[in-house]
């Protein structure tokens, strides 16, 4: 138990942050964190030692989130979203000046599908072919969805940065 407690204390907040990047609802995120750790403890012997242990843990929690999305009703996951325009530029210092919490709130404004693609590619490091394989879409579609998410995120960050600067 002590080992489990230490592992939880060492990685709990980080893994909760991983889950919260994908899922906006707090109670759902707590459930997924719980499920992720249960899976982690029960499958800890599957860790082969190749790659970092933290990276292995991240994958478990990301897969837990993806399994949750699979069970959810797709019609309830689409969020109200404005037209996505790609290609917006961001103030060069915006991201540096904004905290991780603020950046995370910007990501929260993306719709579920785009937020997931963005997290998987930009943060977790999944490649386009891997994401396309997970989601059964073409690689071109994954690329375009990612670019749209990226463009929208740039808009959101710029807007929030200006609001904080002048507001």
């Amino acid at each position: 138990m002590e080992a489990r407690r230490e592992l939880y204390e060492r990685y709990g907040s980080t893994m909760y942050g991983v889950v919260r990047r994908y899922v906006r609802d707090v109670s759902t995120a707590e459930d997924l964190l719980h499920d992720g750790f249960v899976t982690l403890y029960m499958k800890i012997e599957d860790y082969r030692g190749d790659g970092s242990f933290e990276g292995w843990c991240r994958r478990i929690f990301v897969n837990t989130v993806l399994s949750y999305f699979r069970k959810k009703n797709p019609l309830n996951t689409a969020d109200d979203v404005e037209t996505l325009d790609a290609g917006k530029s961001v103030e060069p210092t915006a991201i540096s000046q904004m905290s991780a919490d603020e950046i995370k709130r910007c990501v929260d404004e993306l719709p579920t599908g785009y937020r997931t693609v963005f997290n998987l590619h930009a943060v977790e490091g999944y490649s386009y072919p891997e994401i396309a394989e997970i989601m059964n879409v073409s690689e071109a579609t994954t690329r375009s969805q990612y670019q749209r998410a990226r463009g929208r995120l740039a808009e959101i960050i710029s807007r929030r940065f200006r609001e904080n600067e002048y507001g």
Partner: protein
Amino acid sequence: MTDSNFEKRLSEKLRGYGEQPPPDMFSRIEKTLAEKGAVAPVPAVRRRSLISRITITVAAAAVTGIAVVGVLRVAAPGEADIAAELRNKRDIEKIDIAKLITNELRRADKPQNVAETIIDVIREDQGLPRLNLLEALSTDSGLPGAGAEINGTQRLAMPLPNLTVPSYANMRDESTEAAKRRQQLERERAIEDYWAELFREEMTQQERRRSKNPLSTSFYAGNFGTGTGNMVYNDASAIAASGMMIDNTSMSIPESNVYEGNRPNMSPALRQDNPAYSLKHNMPITAGISVAYPVSPRLSILSGINYTYLYSLSEQTIGSSSASGTGKVYRKQHYVGIPLGVSYSIYKNRVLDIYAKAGGMLEKAVYVSESQELITANSSDETGGRRRVKGVQPSVDAGVGANIRIVNGFGIYVEPGVAYYFENPSQPKSYRTENPTNFTLRVGFRFDIK
């Protein structure tokens, strides 16, 4: 900021993002693990004797030593994880002893009695009765579960993972593997189907929202009242039918203030030897505001407000050979109408939008004025007044349009079409009443409302 910098900085910020879980999360996890039988329930605190504590400490040290020596000796697949964990761990005594024992038990060359002793020590520490390990491990029921009696003691669940494997050799159950693989494939297929549906649903909703927002508004003008499109008559009957014959008996417009119809009002005084008549109805001039409400990516409902100006002029020579002059009757009509229609986008790209539209309109004459001017060699006389017109003028129209997007949210458009004005005797004669089916042309600019 370059693309790679943007993503790199975002990734750095987000990878470092963490949130504090709820305080009771760990106990929830432990409770779930206990329910699944993966761990032992947390026992009640029991006072241990000094001898018991010494025994546990010695046993723990012995196990640790055995585990370190044994695991370091072997690099077999499946145990590399333990080796790596041991090498990386700073506090080696915090290694999960149960997990180590499990892996040790897998090794065929490990004496069972050593493992049995270790397990019994741990069970005693946790308040559980001693267990005959060989008896427990020889069953096919997975974890040594409750129910059977061994050595006179009720067997309890053994809090050791992986003891579900009856044999501790590294043999795998092929049928289990195949079933697991099948389940994995089904799960992956379901995930793929889900994401495909999710993207399709999101793209449909995005297109719907893109068509819903923005609502578009346009300002237009059309059917300019100049050129060869005006209608001209040169006979008295047409003028009479239009109600625009000169009346010089009282030099005033007929008494009735309500225009109930076009009554010929030829006065005997107007008879002339060779009268000349002309009546001209100018083409209508329209202007208005139109609002398009998208109900789907291609279909929009149209409405707005429309203004139409109608102008008519009759001229006639009057009098006799002894006293003649020119009489003119002017009629000016101002209509306001509410159009209602639909528009369907035939072709659309970022710059050009070609569409077809159809609809109808009800117009009300809000102001009609008629004036009469009588010009003779010696005098000039003018009278006039306003007329109230009952009823409405219904019409239908159809056409096509082309909108060119100049900048995002703003464009200019042109809409040629055709309109039909239904006959309504209550409406004064005009270009539209004399030519019910007529060509329309609108030009305007359109902008989006977000």
